């Protein structure tokens, strides 16, 4: 395979970058901007050329804006995830594979790293050095195909389970919630129960049927589930997680959630989008503090990010290569996203999504029983509510983001989202009058040309 042309960060931005803050990790390690710059400009291009490849179809660089410090730091955290996970495992840290509508506060309390399917895939992807975008795509597509055989081609999130079954990754526990948002959780669980790797523990969080957030029994029952989850994590680690630990974890995560909400308000208030759509998504996503496998590191980047965004908005800075009057898209659905750079080339920008954002906006009460409070907040996630309630909340977010159009995507195999997409979109259409579009896609598909074609047509229509 011939080598591809790689993007290089310009040295002229180095001085400014070096003035930025350190990143502090969970274990107390501090990484300076100098070290980050060295990693991004010297080490990472050799290890992960795919992240630097100049590829108009699938540029996977986390940021396209060299002057956007948060983007560079997010990329640093993303690129180092695999190495950090390996080191954490060497030190005996517990790692959980999680899925479904859950917050990671209990995992943080129990000193456990919680990784969703995308991060598990990222961990595995990063274990191989020197790949081009194409080579990595072929490899990961191969894993997906293998998972189709082992589980079902009807399931959407299959890679994580496949890695665990194959023994590729040192995951200690699989802990999905039986939230109705993920119809494919059952495929993964069955595959795990009957697969060869039965050493990995299984904890199934029994999420009470939807729309029970106002029922005392449901909150109590779910709080009991969270207690059992923490007990399971403690059995693995040999530690004892206290109520105080969970309270502190909730406070920490609330800090992240509040910062992300404030950052979103600043971003949405801007006359011109202050970052690209991909950078916006990464910024808002920092609020869960779970996106990089290290809560403290994510929090340090987020604290700095809020000020950076405020400064950019004040100065009227426009996101990298964003057109003058971009069509603002709001994208709905679980585990979906459109190709940010290609959509921006077509004259659009993604200004919001609903899925994980629903977790960010729901703050947890800090006074009283933390198990009860967390259970109550989780059951109140707007995304998990009835169609009318979820749609009403989504309409609010769409209005805040000043979107021009709404796209609902659902992955092949994601039966719940596919089934309710039309009803949600109908409410949104009725309440906002905005053009809407629904499309099915394949998660992890090698080529998303069909999807991009539809998105571009929608943008042209707008």
């Amino acid at each position: 395979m011939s080598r591809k042309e790689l993007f290089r960060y310009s040295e002229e931005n180095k001085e400014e970058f070096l003035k930025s803050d350190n990143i502090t990790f969970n274990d107390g390690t501090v990484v300076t901007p100098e070290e980050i710059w060295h990693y991004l400009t010297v080490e990472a291009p050799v290890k992960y050329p795919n992240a630097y490849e100049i590829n108009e179809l699938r540029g996977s660089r986390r940021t396209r804006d060299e002057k956007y410090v948060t983007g560079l730091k997010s990329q640093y955290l993303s690129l180092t995830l695999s190495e950090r996970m390996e080191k954490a495992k060497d030190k005996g840290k517990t790692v959980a594979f999680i899925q479904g509508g859950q917050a990671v506060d209990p995992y943080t309390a129990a000193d456990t790293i919680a990784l969703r399917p995308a991060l598990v895939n990222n961990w595995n992807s990063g274990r191989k050095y020197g790949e081009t975008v194409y080579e990595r795509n072929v490899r990961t597509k191969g894993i997906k195909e293998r998972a189709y055989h082992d589980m079902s081609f009807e399931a959407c999130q299959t890679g994580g389970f496949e890695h665990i079954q194959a023994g590729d990754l040192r995951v200690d526990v699989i802990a999905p919630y039986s939230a109705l948002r993920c119809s494919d959780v059952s495929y993964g669980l069955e595959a795990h129960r009957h697969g060869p790797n039965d050493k990995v523990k299984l904890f199934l969080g029994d999420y009470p049927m939807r729309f029970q957030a106002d029922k005392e029994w449901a909150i109590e029952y779910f709080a009991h589930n969270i207690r059992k989850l923490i007990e399971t994590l403690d059995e693995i680690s040999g530690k004892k997680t206290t109520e105080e630990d969970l309270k502190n974890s909730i406070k920490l995560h609330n800090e992240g959630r509040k910062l992300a909400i404030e950052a979103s308000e600043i971003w949405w208030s801007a006359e011109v989008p202050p970052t690209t759509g991909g950078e916006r998504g990464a910024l808002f996503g920092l609020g869960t503090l779970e996106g990089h496998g290290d809560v403290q590191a994510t929090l340090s980047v987020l604290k700095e990010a809020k000020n950076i965004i405020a400064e950019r908005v004040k100065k009227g800075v426009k996101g990298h290569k964003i057109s003058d009057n971009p069509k603002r898209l709001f994208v709905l659905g679980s585990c979906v996203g459109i190709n940010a750079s290609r959509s921006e080339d077509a004259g659009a920008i993604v200004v919001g999504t609903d899925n994980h954002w629903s977790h960010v906006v729901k703050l947890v009460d800090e006074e009283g029983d933390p198990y009860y409070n967390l259970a109550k907040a989780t059951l109140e996630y707007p995304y998990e509510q009835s169609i009318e309630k979820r749609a009403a909340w989504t309409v609010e977010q769409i209005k805040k983001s000043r979107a021009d159009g709404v796209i609902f995507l659902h992955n092949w195999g994601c039966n719940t989202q596919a089934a309710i997409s039309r009803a949600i979109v109908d409410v949104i259409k009725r309440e906002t009058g905005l053009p809407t579009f629904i499309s099915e896609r394949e998660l992890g598909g090698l080529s998303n040309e069909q999807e991009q074609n539809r998105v571009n047509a929608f943008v042209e229509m707008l």
Partner: protein
Amino acid sequence: MTNINAFAGVDVGSLGTKAVILVNGEIAGSSLIRTGINSVENGLESLEKALDSANLKKEDLKYIVGTGYGRISAPYANKTITEITCHAKGAHYLHPATRTIIDMGGQDCKAIRVDEEGNVVDFAMNDKCAAGTGRFLEVMANVFKVDISELGPLALKATQVLPVSSTCTVFAESETVSLLARGEKPEDIIIGVHHAIANRIKGLFSRVGIQSDVFFSGGVAKNTGMRKALEEVLEVRIANPENDPQLVGAIGAAVSAQRLYEKSGNVSQRSA
């Protein structure tokens, strides 16, 4: 560049590559070739042939728009636009009263709603599966051992509509073989196949709605049996312009080329 007011649209589809030349707003030339493995060469070859039929050279063109799945590799085009927009513009150019378009190509079918100026106001496409498209009909033509162009006329000879599955090309093929083995008349099965496709299309219109006039574009629109089945299933009359329906996307691309040129006033040089 000469003073001729010439524009081109090139539509590189999954089965056919089409090009249309517009001179002073009128269609002056066109071409249709089979899409091969090199979409850049296919586009250029189709463009050259269309230019030949219009007695023009590439230098005469002021602006080129590329569309279709091959548009991703169209260095000869000033701009690329999706075929959804192009079919809308093309249908409006040929039949200005068009408000709804059924486009059936080699691998997808689309339901497109347009306003009085040919702007797309809503659309829906088949997802994932190519059952109910040109490929589906090709498979069926193979079963009956006839050329695809013969399917439509055969369908019109049917005395009854035999139901055939529309959900999967492979299942529909085995169902068809089974019906033949049962001794059913081929014409009755063939009209059943066309109705199966029409029923699939009906599902798309349940999402975007339907309003007259209805225009039928794409390669499958040449099939008279398909036209009849759609009219029966959708309960509409389909407009019948004289032009080749397979060229509608390329016509729309050429119309868009002219509009973009006029809008920009000062166009940059083409890249190839």
